[in-house]
């Protein structure tokens, strides 16, 4: 036990060790996005499909499934944020700037990683308060949001999403956050492969293109929801 704790502490305090933790937690969060987006796309299938999916999420493994997912994701998120903030502080302390900018290759997204990341973090807090904890709104009011679904009482998640995004400021913040997420992923997804040592000169192009395509898919998918609600395409 003592030696495994020692291993974790040594690994975490080394530069590459911390980056590997950031890469693995980044991978978990990236895969979660794909799952989250595919589920959300059911909103275009219809009210019944979407509410059934929401009911399934909350009741799989007798309700334990959603909590297992939440704990894994929260742990990954905390490690990802703490790791990157510590790495960024170390990087700022190690460097000095020049009187002329000689940047040759760094992408814009790669330069704003910490700021896109922190904005996404603020958004995640808001997003959870909005749709999960349902603070400051009426989404928990059974009179408005309780329905009968295939013979059991269920939450009308479909109506909640439409009401939530009908408020313009929420949709605008959502679109800004998803846009920064897209920027964050375009550098982050490719970086996962490099940090885990899975990139070679043969796979470099494929990985970079794959990361771009993935981040664009995520952007189009998530942004389509508030836009469709605001344009009354989904009602």
């Amino acid at each position: 036990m003592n030696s495994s704790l020692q291993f974790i502490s040594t690994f975490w305090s080394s530069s590459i060790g911390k980056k590997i933790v950031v890469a693995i937690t980044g991978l978990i969060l990236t895969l979660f996005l794909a799952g989250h987006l595919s589920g959300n796309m059911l909103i275009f299938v219809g009210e019944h499909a979407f509410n059934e999916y929401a009911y399934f999420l909350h009741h799989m493994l007798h309700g334990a499934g959603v909590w297992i997912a939440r704990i894994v994701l929260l742990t990954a998120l905390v490690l990802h944020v703490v790791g990157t903030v510590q790495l960024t502080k170390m990087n700022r302390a190690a460097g000095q700037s020049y009187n002329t900018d000689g940047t040759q290759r760094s992408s814009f997204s790669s330069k704003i990683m910490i700021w896109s990341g922190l904005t996404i973090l603020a958004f995640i807090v808001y997003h959870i308060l909005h749709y999960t904890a349902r603070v400051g709104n009426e989404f928990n009011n059974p009179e408005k949001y309780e329905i009968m679904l295939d013979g059991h009482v269920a939450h009308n998640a479909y109506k909640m999403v439409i009401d939530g995004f009908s408020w313009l400021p929420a949709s605008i913040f959502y679109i800004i956050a998803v846009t920064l997420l897209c920027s964050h992923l375009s550098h982050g997804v490719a970086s996962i492969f490099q940090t885990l040592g899975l990139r070679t000169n043969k796979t470099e192009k494929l990985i970079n293109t794959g990361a771009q395509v993935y981040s664009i898919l995520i952007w189009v998918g998530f942004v389509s929801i508030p836009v469709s609600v605001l344009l009354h395409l989904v009602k």
Partner: protein
Amino acid sequence: MSTLNLTLKIWRQAGPEAEGKIETRKAQNIPIEASFLEMLDIVNQQIIETGGDPIHFDHDCREGICGMCSLTINGVPHSKEVGTTTCQVHMRKFNDGDTIFIEPFRANAFPVLKDLVTDRTAFDRIIASGGYIDVRTGSAPDANSVPIPKEQADWAFDAATCIGCGACVASCKNSSAMLFVSAKAAHLNSLPQGQPEKDKRVLSMVRQMDAEGFGNCTNQYECEAACPKLISADNIAKLNRDFAIASVKEAVAMV
């Protein structure tokens, strides 16, 4: 013979503790055949003749193989010329009337000693921590007595062409030494002679790199663009992979 008249914006710093500043100086009648360092020699000759303190800069072989010359030219270590050391940059690459910024390789792990001269001994300490192989002393082994596949030999050779100049650190937004360390580790780790000490080497070199105060790699590959020997960032991926494996092995050994 064509000549250039240039405006130089040069970093001057009297000593390690002194405050440095950019000094503006004219460089007149510079022949286009001159190398960048020869241009500085001409400027220094004029300074010496007028009784001033010449501009201090590092140099040695002046044929692009020793890794001693440095200088950040217009924000790019060794200038924006691809795969070129400062000593191999020629003044024909500049235009008459140009303003050129000349600064030292900047990183907290490379403190300025005087003007453009920096202390890069942090690299030596990283090498001393594991960038070697333990061999019996005595006569050199016969060539080809250890068979190595061509592809592997090429990969090791490409990594071994690193001259340890420090341009990777100087170009990195985080002053990370990952390209240097990964090239030195990959050179030995991909050859049979380097295998017995592979894990120990990776762990020691990375730990020494961290202790020297270099930053962390953020995969922007400025180092690859600045490297005068075109060392590939694939070496960094390999170092990351080797470090993960060595760490796990070390953890298993501890239990």
